[in-house]
């Protein structure tokens, strides 16, 4: 086991891609410990790739890209402006609110950061907000993209833990909304203290109805996608496929911003992105197989149980490990590595795997906004032109909301489990 972990650390530090580091460390194990088992490598790789549920992954990515190319970001911003624009720090509040809605469409935080940040960061700067504040709020609010359904990391966890995608989608709903609500509160408090501007928007019943009707095609989409999975109308893969069809109809027929060439580019880039994630998933199957062979998950579970920790303390400890791991490892590989290690202990402690999944994804969402390896920070740095450290410092108060929600869902699991129980049991 030491050889396996040490070689993985070495390959990762040498800068070898995560997917191939996982496979190389598995190969090292076979070469030095069990050469007779090395023949299973291609089989494990094939088994890792041939998952019907994971076909949802490129389809969800494509759905988000098409909606993005269809010009929905501006529509979401206009919609949110009506509700919160006239308050102090209006554009900051719009940034958070738009991320809550965008999270329900793209399922990806990086996409949220790029789409909303490229519009709102320059606009907020023009209206007198400090640029680091605009970037910080953009990056922190984008974490909701991973938590609010549909969520790509939740699909990856569902497949790894063999849990229901629908339950995980619903489990992320309340925590995602809580993060948004807390971030709205923090933004408003900071805006009042720092006297950030209000936007000259009117708030009337007529405006709300008109703006809601204009945005209905965007607002209905997450309900449609998640609803089809939860109601059992379609599998996660089919639901993602229908989501792509819906997005294409919006892009080609409603907004008419989508062109066939853009559709093809979105297809090409979605499958390329998916291939990179899928390769990590596939090679992690090799790695997990070796971990299972060495009985690592059982050993970890045994150690955790022998400590005699209560489920709450255990989950708090795991949350801490997830927060630390998230700063060094990207979301997908972290899910694939941490799930098989901790899940047996979680099940033995009689904790819901859905709760663990939501805690895992919520914790890793914070990691996506922290250096040295913060995917969303990288994107925001590109969009805003600011240094990663500057953005992280500005995002700090908003990320505190994520950590508070992480603690809350650990202490009060019903915040996660109530919606899936109510709608699916």
């Amino acid at each position: 086991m030491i050889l396996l972990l040490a070689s993985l650390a070495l390959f990762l530090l040498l800068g070898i891609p995560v997917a191939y580091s996982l496979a190389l460390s598995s190969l090292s194990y076979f070469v030095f410990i069990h050469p007779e088992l090395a023949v299973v490598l291609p089989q494990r790789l094939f088994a890792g790739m041939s998952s019907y549920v994971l076909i949802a992954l490129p389809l969800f990515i494509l759905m988000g890209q098409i909606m993005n190319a269809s010009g929905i970001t501006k529509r979401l911003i206009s919609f949110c402006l009506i509700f919160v624009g006239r308050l102090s720090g209006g554009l900051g509040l719009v940034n958070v609110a738009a991320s809550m809605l965008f999270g329900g469409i793209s399922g990806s935080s990086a996409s949220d950061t790029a789409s909303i940040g490229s519009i709102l960061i320059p606009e907020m700067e023009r209206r007198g907000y400090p640029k680091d504040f605009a970037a910080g709020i953009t990056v922190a609010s984008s974490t909701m993209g991973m938590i609010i359904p549909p969520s790509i990391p939740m699909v990856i966890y569902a497949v790894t833990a063999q849990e229901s995608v629908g339950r995980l989608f619903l489990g992320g709903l309340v925590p995602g909304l809580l993060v948004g609500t807390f971030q709205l509160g923090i933004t408003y408090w900071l805006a009042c203290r720092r006297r950030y501007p209000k936007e000259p928007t009117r708030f009337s019943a007529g405006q709300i109805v008109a703006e809601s009707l204009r945005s209905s095609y965007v607002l209905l989409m997450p309900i449609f996608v998640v609803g089809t999975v939860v109601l059992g109308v379609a599998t996660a893969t089919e639901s993602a496929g229908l989501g792509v069809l819906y997005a294409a109809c919006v892009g080609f027929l409603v907004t008419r911003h989508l062109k066939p060439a853009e559709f093809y580019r979105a297809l090409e880039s979605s499958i390329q992105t998916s291939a990179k994630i899928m390769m990590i998933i596939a090679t992690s199957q090799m790695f997990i197989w070796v971990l299972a062979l060495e009985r690592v998950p059982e050993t970890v579970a045994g150690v955790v149980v022998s400590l005699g920790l209560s489920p709450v303390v255990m989950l708090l400890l795991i949350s801490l490990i997830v927060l630390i791991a998230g700063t060094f490892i990207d979301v997908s590989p972290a899910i694939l590595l941490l799930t098989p290690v901790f899940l047996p202990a979680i099940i033995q402690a009689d904790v819901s795997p859905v709760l663990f999944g939501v805690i895992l994804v919520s914790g890793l969402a914070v990691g996506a906004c922290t250096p040295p390896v913060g995917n969303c920070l990288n994107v925001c740095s590109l969009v805003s032109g600011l240094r990663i450290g500057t953005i992280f410092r500005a995002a700090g108060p908003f990320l505190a909301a994520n950590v508070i929600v992480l603690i809350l869902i650990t202490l009060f699991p019903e915040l996660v489990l109530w919606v899936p129980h109510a709608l699916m049991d």
Partner: protein
Amino acid sequence: MKKLEATLNRVLESIATLCFLAILMIVITLVVLRYVFNSSITGANELITVLFVYSTAIGAAVAVGKREHITISVVAERLPRGLRRMIDALGLLLVASLNGVLVWYSIDWIGTTGDFLMPSTELPRIVAQISIPLGSGLAVLYCVFRLARALIGEEALGESWTPEGESEKAPDTP
């Protein structure tokens, strides 16, 4: 050599994209058939899984050539340039060797089980299994391309792979 690699990229990306388009069409068709015509296509789910494996294997190989795989580059980026070049070359050799091993073991695996039929489509398993040596073989080819281009001075080694997660970050990608 650069042109050759670019052409190969275009061809492979087109194949992966067409596989994905076919997956999308079949998935949507299946739902429509089920709810509108109360019907289905036997083996369709198996077929889209096979197409997905191909698109992943090919897409992952192309990502080796384009240096787009997700990497933790925090340490490697801070090393002196000379050392970085050596490590980059070593990394390419390791990735090529790994994929070579995968091709080698695939031959035995496919030889043993390739004739078995898949349960729904009743196609021989080799149709799906061949995707693994194909993708791995292409990855070896891309590593050789990169090393050869470095040797003839067309490309400098030592530039990091895409930093972790960056492949998912551009505005046109999630």
